[in-house]
């Protein structure tokens, strides 16, 4: 096989059009009264055939053999090729209309300077002819000194230009006059097939419609030229021809009304066939379609395993798995066929060894059952335990596509475990996900070994767990494991049995820590600080009065509360350790069990937040007010100093900048002090503070906004200055520098903010939204570029990392041969390595 070395795109010359063309297309009539295509029309069978049973009149090929043949249209008057408007303008401007000589500095062009940067000579250096100014009157008329140029004039001008001159201006691989069309290539019928509707009517392709228009107008123009019709009629028709040819090339030119279908829909012409998301490139060449897949809304299921996905019965009856009949599974498969296609664990098709494929319907299932024998292939419904591939777009990393075991369920949504939301970045506000059913044993084995959820708990990005508990699971774990939580024997039994833990309960009461310990495998030993750690000056470790020092001995939680640092994604030490020391399935089991334990205990205890959580007592409030007033006074004084010119200015800064810096520091102190006061005085049992300290949701900062004060609103890290001249809003005096007039919000959300404060708050909010949307766009494009650059690189059996051409990129993957998805934060723990 020969290789394509290069592809060159050039303009097409009239000679090549004539060579390619098998016939001139001369008539705008398409079908005759017998519904047979008219000779010389756009559907002439010489241009290829689309109806079965017919033969091409050019090459004699049948449908599928003949790929079609080009025709051509000869224009009565030439028209501009709209796609080359910029080039035509360039040539008109930089060449003499009398002799075609270059009107710019030749040596500079030879140096590779773009013609646009060079001066145009006003008189021709060769013939001395005066040159006019070229303007483009939209959509496609060129004007030289108020005299409109016809395509004929332009073409005559271009014919005078030497190849060398054209080359210098940047017209390579063709003659400039080819920009003005005298011939139009008519694409084969096979490139614009007509569709026969149910009613028997033919519906033509948009390109065919457009070609008919062009031929019709061209015909009328030719007729009128022949009879010597008045100029204005000729001009109108010529302009109309230009319009049709223009829209034939591109129907989305801003200055031209798009050509429309009778229904009002604008026509999809050549450029539209290629362009954008549903164009030939992105839709047909880069895009792929698959069978055996399903897509629906996802919803949460706290009882489903991390490895499972809940599949609606409706989907399971449509998606099938081909199973080869053996003497061991024949009875099982017979049961499926007996159920038929409409009852759930049924079957849809049976293929015999001779290749005959039969659809299972209730009427023929008896006969199929009779002849069923080893060697047949039964396409049975999806059942519990089948391996499937689950995906959520955008697929930004490899955990966006993972293998799950199917679990057939009622209703119409895919159900998934909450710990697997993070890698998919899924929530349940209407997100949809895709499911694929694997069709071969190899694919199933590969998916199960490499893509199963539990095998992807550790992320290759940072070598830590990417799955874990969040939100209520965290605050629930804290409530469960904090000092003082106890359950009776009965309650404990209920909790444990729900989590599928069988245990011999000997005691009458169990503490939360003991219940949690049932889920931790034996042999796990850990010691670390919890997220609730108050960062005391000297950590008392075991004796921590906040119970924030976690000690796990041989799978027993001895001390400390469980929070983000134990069971969350990214930080969860327990998940991390179990995954490393006990294996992926133990880590999955741990997540399955603790989430169930936590949901049960949360159902018993309850956890909620109310407005009461935001109340501050009188002394706290006055403390905060005092702090604010003190700082505001400082700022007031700074402003006065500034007005008197008594301000310290560091070199290179203006007094205004210096003042701003000072004010910002003082304002920042307000927020900081408020936060500290709230952190210190808030009740330990306050739900909001529990969520903030355990890392379940929110932060002390959020709490300070709600019950302390909102503080300074900033735009691009500075106080707000935009608005009217000298002031932000008309409610302030010009030149007012006070905090209130530049976005300082003294109120808290609980107290409520006044309209001016609200205005500033919304300004800040808008900045945030703009930032995040901009960031996703930029990083999305960055990701695409990286993926395109790296997608073909792989590790070979010799451990060399090579690209698709076989060139070595690295001699050993990552230069350390460590699979980050199997590493401990990028490193290998030698102790664990030697243990296995």
């Amino acid at each position, binding site marked *: 096989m020969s290789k394509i070395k290069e592809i060159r795109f050039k303009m097409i010359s009239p000679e090549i059009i004539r060579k390619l063309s098998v016939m001139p297309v001369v008539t705008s009539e398409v079908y005759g009264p017998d519904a047979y295509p008219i000779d010389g029309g756009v559907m002439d069978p010489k241009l290829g055939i689309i109806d079965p049973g017919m033969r091409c009149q050019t090459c004699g090929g049948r449908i599928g053999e003949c790929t079609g043949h080009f025709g051509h249209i000869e224009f009565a008057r030439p028209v501009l090729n709209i796609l080359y408007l910029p080039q035509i303008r360039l040539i008109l401007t930089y060449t003499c209309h009398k002799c075609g000589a270059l009107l710019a500095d030749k040596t500079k062009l030879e140096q590779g300077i773009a013609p646009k940067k060079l001066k145009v000579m006003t008189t021709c250096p060769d013939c001395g002819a005066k040159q006019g100014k070229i303007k483009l009157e939209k959509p496609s008329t060129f004007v030289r000194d108020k005299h409109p140029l016809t395509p004929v004039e332009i073409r005559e001008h271009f014919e005078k230009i030497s190849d060398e001159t054209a080359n210098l201006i940047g017209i390579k691989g063709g003659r400039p006059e080819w920009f003005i069309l005298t011939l139009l290539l008519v694409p084969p019928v096979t490139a614009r097939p007509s569709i026969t509707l149910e009613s028997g009517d033919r519906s033509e392709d948009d390109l065919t419609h457009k070609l008919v228009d062009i031929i019709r107008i061209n015909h009328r123009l030719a007729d009128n030229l022949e009879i010597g019709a008045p100029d204005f009629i000729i001009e109108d028709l010529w302009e109309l021809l230009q319009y049709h040819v223009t829209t034939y090339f591109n129907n989305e030119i801003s200055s031209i009304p798009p050509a429309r279908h009778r229904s009002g829909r604008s026509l999809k012409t050549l450029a539209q066939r290629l362009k954008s998301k549903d164009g030939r490139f992105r839709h047909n060449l880069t895009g792929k379609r698959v069978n055996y897949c399903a897509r629906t809304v996802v919803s949460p299921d706290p009882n489903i395993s991390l490895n499972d996905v809940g599949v609606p019965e409706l989907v399971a009856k449509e998606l099938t798995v081909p199973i080869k009949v053996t003497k061991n599974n024949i009875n099982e498969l017979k049961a499926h066929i007996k159920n038929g296609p409409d009852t759930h664990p049924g079957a849809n098709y049976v293929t015999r060894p001779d290749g005959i494929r039969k659809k299972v319907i209730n009427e023929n299932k008896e006969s199929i059952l009779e002849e069923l024998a080893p060697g047949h292939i039964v396409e049975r419904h999806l059942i519990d335990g089948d391996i499937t591939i689950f995906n959520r777009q955008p697929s930004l990393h490899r955990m966006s596509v993972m293998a799950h075991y199917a679990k057939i369920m009622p209703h119409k949504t895919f159900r998934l475990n909450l710990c697997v939301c993070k890698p998919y970045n899924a929530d349940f506000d209407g997100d949809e996900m895709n499911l694929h059913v694997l069709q071969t044993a190899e694919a199933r084995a590969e998916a199960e070994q490499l893509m199963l959820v539990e095998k992807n708990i550790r992320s290759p990005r940072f070598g830590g767990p990417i799955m874990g508990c969040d939100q209520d699971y965290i605050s629930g774990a804290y409530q469960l494991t904090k000092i003082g939580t106890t359950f009776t024997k009965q309650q404990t039994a209920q909790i444990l049995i729900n989590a599928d833990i069988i245990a011999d309960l000997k005691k009458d009461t169990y503490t939360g820590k003991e219940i949690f310990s049932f889920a931790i495998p034996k042999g796990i030993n850990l010691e670390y600080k919890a997220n609730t750690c108050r960062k005391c000056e000297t950590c008392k470790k075991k004796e921590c009065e906040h119970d924030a020092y976690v000690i796990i001995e041989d799978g027993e939680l001895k001390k400390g509360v469980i929070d983000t640092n134990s069971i969350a994604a990214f930080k969860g030490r327990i998940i991390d350790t179990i995954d490393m020391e006990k294996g992926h399935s133990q880590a999955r089991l741990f997540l399955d069990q603790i989430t169930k334990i936590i949901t049960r205990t949360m159902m018993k205890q309850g956890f909620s937040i109310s407005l009461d959580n935001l109340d501050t007592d009188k002394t706290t409030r006055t403390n905060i007010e005092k702090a604010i007033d003190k700082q505001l006074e400082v700022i007031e004084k700074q402003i006065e100093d500034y007005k008197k010119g008594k301000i310290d200015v560091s070199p290179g800064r203006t007094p205004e900048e210096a003042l701003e810096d000072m004010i910002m520091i003082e304002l920042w102190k307000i927020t900081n002090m408020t936060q500290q006061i709230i952190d210190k005085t808030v009740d330990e049992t306050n739900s909001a503070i529990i969520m903030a300290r355990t890392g379940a949701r929110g932060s002390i900062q959020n709490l300070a906004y709600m019950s302390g004060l909102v503080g300074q609103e900033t735009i691009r890290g500075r106080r707000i200055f935009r608005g009217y001249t000298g002031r932000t809003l008309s409610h302030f005096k010009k030149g007012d520098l006070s905090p209130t007039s530049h976005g300082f919000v003294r109120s808290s959300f609980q107290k409520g903010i006044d309209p001016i404060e609200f205005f500033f708050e919304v300004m800040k909010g808008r900045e945030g939204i703009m930032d995040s949307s901009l960031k996703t766009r930029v990083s999305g494009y960055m990701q695409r570029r990286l993926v395109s650059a790296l997608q073909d690189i792989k590790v070979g059996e010799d451990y060399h990392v090579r690209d698709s051409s*076989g*060139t*070595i990129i690295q001699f050993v993957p*990552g230069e350390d041969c460590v699979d980050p998805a199997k590493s401990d934060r990028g490193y290998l723990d030698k102790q664990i390595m030697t243990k296995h």
Partner: protein
Amino acid sequence: MSEKDILSHELVSEHKILTKNESQKILSQLNVKPDRLPKMRDTDPVVEIIGAKVGDIVEITRDSPTAGKTKYYRVVIPE
């Protein structure tokens, strides 16, 4: 900064031209042909300073946070 100084910069790894014998040994050890090796231009500043010629194989000893020191081989190609 003089030209030679770039070799002592902390971001420039140690470069060493391999002898004919060493090159042969490395190539057979890695089981690759020289045209499959990563390339470096003869106009590369380090190549110019150490005086490697087109076709030479340069051994680069790099620091790695996870692997300590690693060896990398690049073949010099004409500009």
